[in-house]
């Protein structure tokens, strides 16, 4: 039983079934991978989990409680945080302020007081965006903006972190650092659901992977099993690509 349970979720756009009876379980303390070809429904599934998209069927549970009909900001307060595939930073705020917005929301329902300025600095440091803390986010290159978004997501002190292609726009160094960061975070007990097309990162970071194709889960298993699965190779991995 995972911390986050996605139970037979379906999403329909007009005549198109973007997600079709998908079930995924995201346990705490490890990274769960979600991969699949373009247009498979991964981002849509993220939108369902965070409440930005109402599912046409199925349930989402957090810690056993049904949150399918909760409003998005409530889910955030319950501990679901995410980053976006197409950047959604607060462009006219600085990186630090981006993080502060999230921190201050958390402070409103946290019991103990704390110094948000200090935590913001720590978070930016942790994701590797400390140098750009006082720059406006819309003038940052994509990669740095992504890191700021990650710091902002962490600032809500989540139980579950949903990452939608976090490594796109990062360079190799930063991607490696991201892998390390993911390990640290899960060691602290966080549950991470990772959507990513960068196979080395996925294979290295995830303990368990689900493969989505045309809205359906076509395979599940450990990285090794997934890599060996012929249907996954056909639908997604291709031939030349394999994990390093």
């Amino acid at each position, binding site marked *: 039983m995972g911390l986050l349970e996605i139970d037979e979720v379906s999403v329909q756009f007009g005549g198109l079934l973007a997600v079709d009876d998908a079930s995924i379980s995201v346990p705490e303390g490890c990274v769960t991978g979600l991969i699949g070809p373009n247009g498979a429904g991964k981002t849509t599934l993220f939108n369902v989990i965070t409440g930005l998209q109402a599912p046409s069927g199925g349930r989402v549970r957090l810690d056993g409680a049904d949150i399918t009909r909760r409003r998005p900001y409530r889910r955030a307060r319950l501990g679901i945080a995410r980053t976006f595939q197409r950047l959604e930073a607060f462009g006219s705020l600085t990186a630090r302020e981006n993080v502060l917005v999230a921190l201050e929301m958390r402070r409103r329902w946290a019991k103990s007081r704390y110094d948000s300025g200090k935590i913001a600095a720590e978070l930016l440091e942790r994701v590797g965006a400390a140098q750009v803390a006082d720059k406006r986010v819309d003038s940052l290159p994509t*990669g740095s903006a992504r890191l700021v978004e990650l710091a902002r997501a962490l600032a809500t002190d989540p139980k579950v972190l949903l990452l939608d292609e976090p490594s796109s726009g990062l360079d190799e160094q930063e991607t490696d650092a991201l892998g390390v960061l993911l390990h640290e975070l899960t060691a602290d007990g966080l549950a991470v659901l990772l959507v990513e097309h960068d196979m080395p990162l996925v294979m290295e970071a995830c303990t368990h992977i689900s493969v989505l194709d045309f809205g359906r889960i076509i395979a599940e298993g450990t990285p090794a099993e997934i890599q060996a699965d012929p249907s996954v190779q056909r639908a997604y991995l291709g031939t030349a690509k394999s994990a390093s």
Partner: protein
Amino acid sequence: MTSMQAVPTPDATDDEVPILQLAAVRAGYGRIDVLHGIDLELRAGEVFALLGPNGAGKSTTLAVCSGQITPSTGGMFLCGRDVTGVAPDALARAGVCLIPEGRGIFPNLNVLENLRMATFTGHSFSQVLDLAFAQFPRLGERRKQTAGTLSGGEQQMLSMARALATEPAVLLIDELSMGLAPIIVEELYEHVRRIAASGLSILIVEQFAHEILGLADRAGIMLHGRLLHTGPPASIADELADAYLGAEHETPAAHPSQ
């Protein structure tokens, strides 16, 4: 009106006029420079890979090449003709095609209308459709969908479709692989290789070196707004690791390798 202008003779190694050349270009946003003197040449029919870490100025370089940013000093030449300050639409019609990073679609138009926009460079609509849908059957299934609701990867396909369908003379690609499934990336690289073989000149920007170096004729590393090394991919691969570490390469002068 634009007078024929002699190119400041580049390296003496070959006398062929490069199809695209940046000479000592400084450029940036507002009054703040991001590029500090870029000398870059793209020879006819070659694939040039521009590598470098986050924020090095790669996208800015492409913005200069496509005419979106006018260099504050220095010049840009197309087949030896001075095109510094020429508007991007004119450059596009002259055959320079940029696939921008991440925002290459019209979100409120549908797929067909997006592709219709690719006909400004002289191809007929049916030609564009044939080429685009042959390469990306997925788009064919989504003709009437509003582009903004396509998945991230589908948007990237739509953006790439223009490059493949309009057959430009110079193709500038910013982070081709971003957001695409490995199998698609593999196909795309295959396609890039094919069109490169047909004589088109390609300047391609990537963060990840491995696949692209296999495909490039030459490569360059950018760091802090300077082009540090250019040369054959093999020689670049060694330099690359150092470049990403950054610190050792604060040396201001560009040193093009011969």
